[in-house]
């Protein structure tokens, strides 16, 4: 592993080591580019992970202060925790479940396909399926996604079998154990899944892909990558010409350092990335960096989500084995006859007893709630995830008075469900309940959204600078050597879980940055 000097202004600095930043940093290093990843969180390796929901939550979650506003239910249930994001090397890929789905062709063209939707700031992406197909293929190979590259699917566990039984009875056709970045057999020097069941707590067998176990080590062995943990970037610096020159960060003791840079790539996830650009405001850029469009922080998306839990009269033991163990894809199509645009996926999900108590019915108590907990053994669960509408008013802004431990304004996360989101959720709840009832459920429950796990869109990609922050390479329209490299680039959200697309975009961006550097353009 390399170490670079603070004054080395030839390095590419990547902020954040998650799906976007970890992949980009490793790929740049593989291409011979000297790269420093600054990661706010600590480095916890596979052996440090805990099979303990709250223990793990305390170990690796992003718990810096945040506030919420808007009519979304999360603002009421989890006012100080709008999003479930990791602060550790590997970012949220240490937590993630591994579902790795490509966008559908029409989802790259949301505006054209869905037309004018009142209140929604839909746009077409400046890239399409033909452009992304090879990058998806590369990402799937890197991540070892099941059902691609000849990799078999994972075996179906108990909760998958319940889902599948119900889905077949309802006539659903696209039902399987998912396209998962989890080894169903040993691959890439990592073991096969042992059905441990704590995928959300950092996989202790190494079967699940994360930038921590898969990408970063590959980058480090090249000698071109330094990953600096406990380095929280506070501000991006620029010179008189407007080009960025480095970043100011705080180490674990709060001491500040300036790391110089040739190129800066921001990948702190969709709340911290816009926050960092806004907090970097200067006399030259009074509204924050790369914000001439005024779109930094706007169009925050989080996917339409919800869960359905069902109780059967016999044990399911859903916590045994892979958390997201199967999927129904039939509802992911765009079919306005259902009363909304876009589609959604239905994916199995399980929570352990401690998280079930917190998330099944936040705030719930009394006999009904206790009945559900009493039936924990007999429960099966699914998560519903679909395309939500981008809206300009849904935004990350800097709080007027609240400050974090470094004295910087904390982010406020504002979200109102769009009417389309609400209609889609209703439909999804109904279908989810129907699936479980078809498999013989005694009772079903509609669980409201958890804190956001899919945070997207707050530095959106668009061909034109007037209503987008970055161009089709994730390069900011305003500053040539400043890039955005995470899910905040998303123009629209699509129905699919976003990480495969974030990784594909990062691989593509690495190719672009390395190319521009060798051409002398960067």
């Amino acid at each position, binding site marked *: 592993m390399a170490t670079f000097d603070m004054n080395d202004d030839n390095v590419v600095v990547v902020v954040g080591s998650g799906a976007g930043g970890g992949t980009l940093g490793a790929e740049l290093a593989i291409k011979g580019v000297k790269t420093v990843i600054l990661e706010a969180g600590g480095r916890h390796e596979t052996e440090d992970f805990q099979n303990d929901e*709250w223990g793990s939550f305390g170990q690796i979650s992003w718990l810096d202060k945040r506030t919420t506003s808007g009519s979304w239910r999360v603002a009421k249930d989890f006012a100080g925790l709008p999003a479930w994001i990791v602060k550790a090397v590997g970012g949220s890929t240490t937590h993630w479940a591994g579902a790795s789905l490509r966008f559908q062709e029409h989802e790259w063209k949301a505006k054209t396909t869905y037309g004018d939707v009142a209140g929604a700031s839909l746009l077409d992406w400046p890239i399409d399926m033909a452009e992304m197909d090879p990058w998806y293929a590369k990402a799937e190979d890197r991540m070892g996604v099941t059902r691609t590259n000849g990799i078999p699917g994972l*075996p179906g*566990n108990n909760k998958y079998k*319940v889902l599948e039984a119900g889905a077949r009875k309802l006539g659903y056709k696209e039902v399987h154990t998912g396209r998962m970045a989890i080894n169903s057999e040993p691959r890439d020097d990592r073991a096969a899944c042992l*059905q441990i069941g*704590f995928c959300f707590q950092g996989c202790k067998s190494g079967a699940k892909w994360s930038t921590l176990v898969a990408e970063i080590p590959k980058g480090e062995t090249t000698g071109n990558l330094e990953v600096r943990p406990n380095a929280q970037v506070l501000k991006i610096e620029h010179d008189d010409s407007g080009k960025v020159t480095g970043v100011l960060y705080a180490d674990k003791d709060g001491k500040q350092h300036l790391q110089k840079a040739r190129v800066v790539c921001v990948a702190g996830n969709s709340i911290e990335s816009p926050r960092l650009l806004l907090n970097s405001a200067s006399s030259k850029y009074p509204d924050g960096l790369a914000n001439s469009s005024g779109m930094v922080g706007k169009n925050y998306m989080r996917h339409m989500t919800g869960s359905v839990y069902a109780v059967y009269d016999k*044990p399911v*033991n859903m916590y045994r084995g892979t958390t997201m163990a199967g999927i129904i894809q039939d509802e992911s199509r765009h079919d306005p006859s259902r009363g909304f645009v876009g589609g959604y996926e239905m994916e199995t999900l399980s929570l352990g007893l401690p998280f079930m*108590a917190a998330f099944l019915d936040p705030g719930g108590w009394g006999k009904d709630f206790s009945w559900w907990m009493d039936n924990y053994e007999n429960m099966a669960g699914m998560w519903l995830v679909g395309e939500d509408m981008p809206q300009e008013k849904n935004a990350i802004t800097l709080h007027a008075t609240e400050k974090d431990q470094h004295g910087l304004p904390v982010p406020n996360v504002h979200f109102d469900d769009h009417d389309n989101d609400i209609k889609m959720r209703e439909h999804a709840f109904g279908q989810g309940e129907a699936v479980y009832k078809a*498999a013989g459920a005694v009772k079903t429950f509609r669980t409201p959204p958890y804190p956001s796990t899919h945070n997207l869109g707050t530095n959106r990609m668009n061909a034109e600078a007037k209503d987008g922050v970055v161009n089709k390479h994730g390069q900011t329209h305003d500053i040539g050597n400043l890039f955005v490299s995470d899910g905040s680039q998303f123009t629209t959200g699509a129905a699919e879980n976003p990480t495969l697309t974030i990784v594909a975009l990062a691989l593509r961006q690495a190719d672009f940055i390395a190319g521009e550097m060798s051409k002398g353009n960067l």
Partner: protein
Amino acid sequence: MNSQTNLSRRAALKAAGAGLIVAGVGAGGLVFGHNNAWAAKAENLDADTFATLVQMSRDIYSHDRLEDKYYAAAVSGLDKAAKDDAALKALLSDGVAGLNKAAGGAYSGLSDADQRMALLKAMEGDGFFQKVRGNLVTGLYNNKEVWPLFGYEGASADKGGYIDRGFNDINWL
């Protein structure tokens, strides 16, 4: 509140039928359950407050499968937190006083379970109630001793996961 710990067996059975679990409080902050099924020590709160919180906790998330001692353990967590937190201590003491007032006597002696639930329902928006309920989410359900009682097996990596231990053993579909 009755400070005798040995109520007659008949009285104890009657209380249990109504879901009442506190038998009494003794000297030194001790709190007792019926038939000495459980006992706890209030370190920072006064014993009556502690005892009422235990009854209230049982009423909020009542599970026949759980012995009363698990509710007492959850309240002990609150009691410990109150040590250096005067505001919390006041919230709990005042909250219990308010609950007893609303009950027209000791809440923990109110044998009509429906009446107790109605009293809780009326205060569910209050900070006091939310504190006691929120404490249970982790204080009760994150107690590793209760996990097996709900059929949750907890950590599995140390046992090799579930690949050979029933991840796909469902046989009734």
